[in-house]
């Protein structure tokens, strides 16, 4: 697959270049490190026959140090795991990950086909629009409560 190499390099560079060329003035350091900001959280509505689902959201880290999401819990599922997907030779492999990193000043998007919070053995049926309360724990000890609405899959 050497033909893909130039493209791959181009994409890699494209993602690095802005960080190295544009150097905005660093914001004044706050006395307390700002915590991770969560946006657009949702839990995927699944068929009633399903006992599992996934939660997706965007994690933004305005702080100067990488943050790691190390744990998620909810009363809506007996087991919660942090997962990612690996796409190898046309085969989709879902794998647990020990943490989900959010780079300093950057963001990490949990989205279908990639990183997600997997909810296993749901304790109650999913209802569109209902809120699932998630508790996210980060490696610096900070804890965030997130209300994620149940949303149907909306392909476009």
């Amino acid at each position, binding site marked *: 697959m050497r033909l893909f190499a130039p493209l791959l390099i*181009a994409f890699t560079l*494209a993602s690095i270049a802005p960080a*190295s060329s544009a150097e905005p003035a660093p914001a004044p350091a706050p006395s307390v490190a700002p915590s991770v900001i969560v946006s657009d959280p949702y839990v995927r509505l699944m068929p*009633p026959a399903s006992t599992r689902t996934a939660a997706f959201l965007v994690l933004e880290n305005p702080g100067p140090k990488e943050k790691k999401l190390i744990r998620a819990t909810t009363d809506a599922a007996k087991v919660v795991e942090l997962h990612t997907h690996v796409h190898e030779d*046309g085969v*989709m492999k879902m794998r647990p990950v020990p943490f989900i990193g959010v780079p300093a000043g950057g963001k990490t998007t949990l989205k279908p086909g990639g990183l997600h919070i997997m909810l296993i053995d749901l304790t109650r049926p999913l209802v569109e629009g209902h809120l699932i309360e998630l508790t996210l724990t980060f490696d610096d000890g900070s804890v965030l409560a997130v209300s994620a609405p149940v949303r149907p899959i909306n392909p476009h």
Partner: protein
Amino acid sequence: MNEPTAGATSTRRSSRWLMTLAATLAGALVWLALRPAQHELDDVTDARVGTLVDLRLTGQRGIFSLASLRGRLTLVYFGYTSCPDICPTSLAATAAGLSRLTPDELSRVEMVFVSLDPERDREPRLSEYASYFHPKIRGLTGTPAEVAEAASRFGVVYRKVTPPGASDYVVDHSALTYVVGPDGRLLAELPHGAPPDQVVEVVRRHLPR
């Protein structure tokens, strides 16, 4: 934060970056221009395309074979109901495509969801799961041997794995949607999560007149 490299050094460094970037992009463009004509996404170069495919599995109404659907276009997807992301994404996108067909077109299309996880996916749960996405989608499975046989006919690769840190096993699996013609031949393969428009386009292209 240590910022010793101000002024000239940083400018020179970023211009070197930009030149590398430009050169790489130029290379990529040349590659894009020179590579063989772009295949359409569904034209996966699989030697099986054009060959006769079939499967014999069990559905809610008993034994089911693709041969019983001759004369209609059939979409086939292999997955499992405990899959929270890949399978629902594909099934929802394909279902949305089916919903855009006219009633007449839809009457000539079938779809089956083959569970690669017969241990956990039993009736009526399997059929409830499949038809949730679209009433046209029927759930099928069989004994592990029957499922393996069906998968091999389509070149589907799957494996039960319990990765470290997982509370239960997962099933690694190919995530293509297969398009089987009215004569039982494999006509095309749609990639994972093919958008509804692409589903409609491929169905219309292959739909029997």
